């Protein structure tokens, strides 16, 4: 350990500064430092469902409602709401004192603009669920409006929170192409925090919105999101007090953090990217080699999903044994896609039948897997398991912005790995993966480009019924079909664990606006 001796010299010189630095920090106004795993790329939560953007931007905006810990809607921008008897109209009263960060009032017109012109076009989940149902939004007065629906939409209120339906100011985002609007990088919202600065790959700084419409909120003076790509570094920084809050703790760090005694952890089903998430492998069905159902079945048979639970999630999750998450138990078709499908011999046989014989190196097929760099270990395990049956996987690990462009704009991929969050109702997060109307340049929509009229119909039918039993039937039928068609391989359901330093309290880890009520203990 020669290096210690040489390292020590400069270290000791600066050690003297250490105590001084910490004592100054303690007397400052409260700044909450949250670690995020990936650079958000942009800060407009209405045009993506990506969690890197939502983790930061949800604190800048409001929905019409906010979901409490049990998932029940509570007032946010809307003070109250009322559904008509037949379920096709919903009336909302907005908080009259809500203001945008530039001082303009939040109006019903802003809501109409955001939902009709932005969300049902660019937000994959809201587009797939609300898009086909929404007839129009009528502005009744500056602070009241009415949703007019083509048919009843059971999940409506639940999906009007900041994660599913953040409301944007029309006077800022209304002009030109929303995807290239400069405000995506300098957002103006109505939320508890206003934007201060954004240094890519480094940090986003938000400052307390002093004229927030909810009295006494938010409590912390600033929230700083620090980009720390490595999960271990995040956890280490949390334990060392450099960071206050980690929204998604890496599974292998949970136990250690709990043991450290310095940190509070809590399991959450929801988070800024949505809830009930299934890590999903998507096939690009535009690629001729992947159009054969047998080939896709071979992929499914070659993947041992129990290993993902055991080795990557460390049991903080389970095998996804149906296309819809077990977190929506009434719609979940249990065991329709069981872990026992793992059968490498069958995978080899299917590939043989498809005419994909191994070459001299044992390779039958080479596929490119485009995915977030933060899911890197999944790529390693997939490469190994698929490699065992002769499918050579070339992972391309990229940042969220590049992944969205590669997969949804250019469709330049064979396989992609996406954490599809189902939400509290299949309407919210499931439909978007399968509807043929949801193919194209919409982030985290139907990545496979899967088209099946039968499935389109079943989804439409399920949305049109209010009776939960009959909705469940339609969803079960839908799941049987997609399991047979296999546009995706549903790998594992992931649980999230959030953690924060014991010195602080009041985090709403299940919500996008997690820091609104945080305070020193």
């Amino acid at each position, binding site marked *: 350990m020669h290096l210690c001796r040489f390292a020590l010299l400069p270290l000791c010189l600066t050690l003297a500064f250490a105590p001084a630095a910490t004592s100054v920090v303690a007397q400052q106004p409260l700044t909450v430092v949250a670690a995020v795993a990936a650079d958000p790329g942009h800060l407009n939560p209405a045009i993506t469902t990506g969690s890197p953007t939502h983790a930061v931007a949800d604190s800048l905006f409001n929905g019409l409602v906010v979901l409490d810990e049990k998932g029940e809607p509570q007032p946010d921008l809307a003070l109250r709401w009322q559904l008509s008897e037949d379920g096709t109209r919903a009336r909302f009263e907005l908080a009259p004192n809500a203001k945008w960060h530039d001082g303009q009032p939040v109006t019903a017109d802003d809501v109409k603009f955001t939902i009709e012109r932005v969300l049902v076009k660019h937000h994959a989940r809201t587009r797939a669920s609300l898009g086909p149902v929404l007839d129009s939004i009528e502005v009744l007065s500056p602070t009241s409006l009415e949703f007019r629906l083509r048919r009843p939409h059971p999940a409506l209120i639940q999906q009007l929170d900041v994660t599913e339906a953040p409301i944007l100011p029309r006077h800022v985002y209304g002009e030109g192409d929303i995807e290239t609007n400069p405000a995506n990088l300098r957002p103006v919202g109505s939320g508890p925090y206003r934007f201060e600065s954004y240094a890519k790959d480094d940090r986003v700084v938000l400052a307390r919105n002093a004229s927030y419409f909810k009295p006494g909120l938010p409590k912390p003076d600033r929230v700083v999101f620090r980009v720390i790509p*490595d*999960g*271990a*570094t995040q956890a280490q920084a949390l334990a060392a007090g450099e960071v206050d809050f980690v929204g998604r703790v*890496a599974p*292998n*760090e949970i136990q250690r953090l709990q043991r450290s005694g310095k940190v509070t952890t809590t399991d959450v089903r929801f988070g800024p990217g949505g809830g009930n998430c299934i890590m999903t492998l998507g096939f690009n069905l535009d690629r001729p080699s992947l159009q054969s159902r047998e080939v896709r079945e071979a992929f499914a048979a070659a993947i041992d999903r129990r*290993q993902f639970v*055991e*080795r*990557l999630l460390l049991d903080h999750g389970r095998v996804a044994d149906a296309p819809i998450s077990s977190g929506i138990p009434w719609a979940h078709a249990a065991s329709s896609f069981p872990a026992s499908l793992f059968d490498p011999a069958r995978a080899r046989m299917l590939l043989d039948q498809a005419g994909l014989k191994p070459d001299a190196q044992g390779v039958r097929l080479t596929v490119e897997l485009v995915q977030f*760099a933060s899911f*890197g*270990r999944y*790529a*390693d*395990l997939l*490469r*190994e398991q698929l*490699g*065992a049956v002769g499918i*050579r*996987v*070339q*992972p*391309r*690990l990229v940042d969220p912005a590049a992944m969205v462009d590669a997969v949804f704009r250019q469709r330049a991929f064979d396989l992609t790995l996406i954490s599809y969050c189902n939400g509290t109702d299949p309407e919210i997060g499931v439909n978007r993966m399968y509807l043929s109307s949801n193919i194209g340049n919409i982030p985290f929509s139907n990545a496979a480009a899967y088209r099946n009229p039968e499935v389109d119909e079943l989804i439409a039918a399920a949305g049109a019924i209010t009776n939960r039993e009959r909705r469940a039937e339609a969803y079960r039928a839908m799941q049987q079909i997609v399991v047979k068609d296999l546009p995706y391989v549903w790998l594992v359901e992931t649980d999230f664990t959030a953690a924060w330093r014991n010195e602080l309290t009041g985090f709403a880890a299940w919500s996008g606006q997690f820091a609104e009520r945080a305070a020193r203990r």
Partner: protein
Amino acid sequence: MRPDAALDPSRRRAARWGLALLAPPVLLAVLAPLFGKPRAGPMLAAPSLAHPFGTDDLGHDLLLLLAQGARVSFEVGGYATAIALLLGLALGLVAAFGGRLADDLVMRGAELTVTVPPLLLAIVLVGLFGAGNLLTALALGIGTWPMVARVVRAAAYGLRGQPHVIAARALGVSRPMIALRHVLPAILPLALSLTGVLFSGAVLAEATLSFVGLTDHTMPGWGHIMAHAGPYLRDAWWLWFFPGGLLVMTTAGVAWIADAA
């Protein structure tokens, strides 16, 4: 090769140490195909008889992973060294025997090349063309040829005054012929003595590229293994210790052997 190399005992000792250091990684690389594909075992198991180097977070036997990684390192290191030697020898001889203009061009080219760090060149090429071991080797070879060319040129200049070269010239042997027949054999050992620096530099550069994720992910190198050691630094020292140790053994071993040659 220095004439007294074989006689100097301290050099011989250095060479023996170098060989001892280099043997294990070479052995690993040679034996890698026999080991077969890594299979899942217990996760993060400490070194034991069943897993001499322990296992990683996915339950892979670290020894097998490192054996595969050794092949990547030696492949990239070998190709890069060969490319640098070939380019350097050719251009060095051209500079020495090709006349004033050729000399100037080659030497300016060399000056220019050394301002571009080989690793930077590799990142640019990988960024533009996609990751691959051969491309990496090519970039590293192109980035290091001046080191060889300068030595070759200087030595060849020295040889121009040697009696046998003067004699050949007087007999009307063409300049390229003199360069190949009479000069090349004499300076080849000198050029080869740079193998150590070139090879260890390339192995280190490959490890860095694979650490940051800019190599072919289908063949994980030592750097990739070390990048994934990060999360387990506190519990699984072996994930940090063995790959780095092997890397240092390789680079130091090669450097010492070459230094003694």
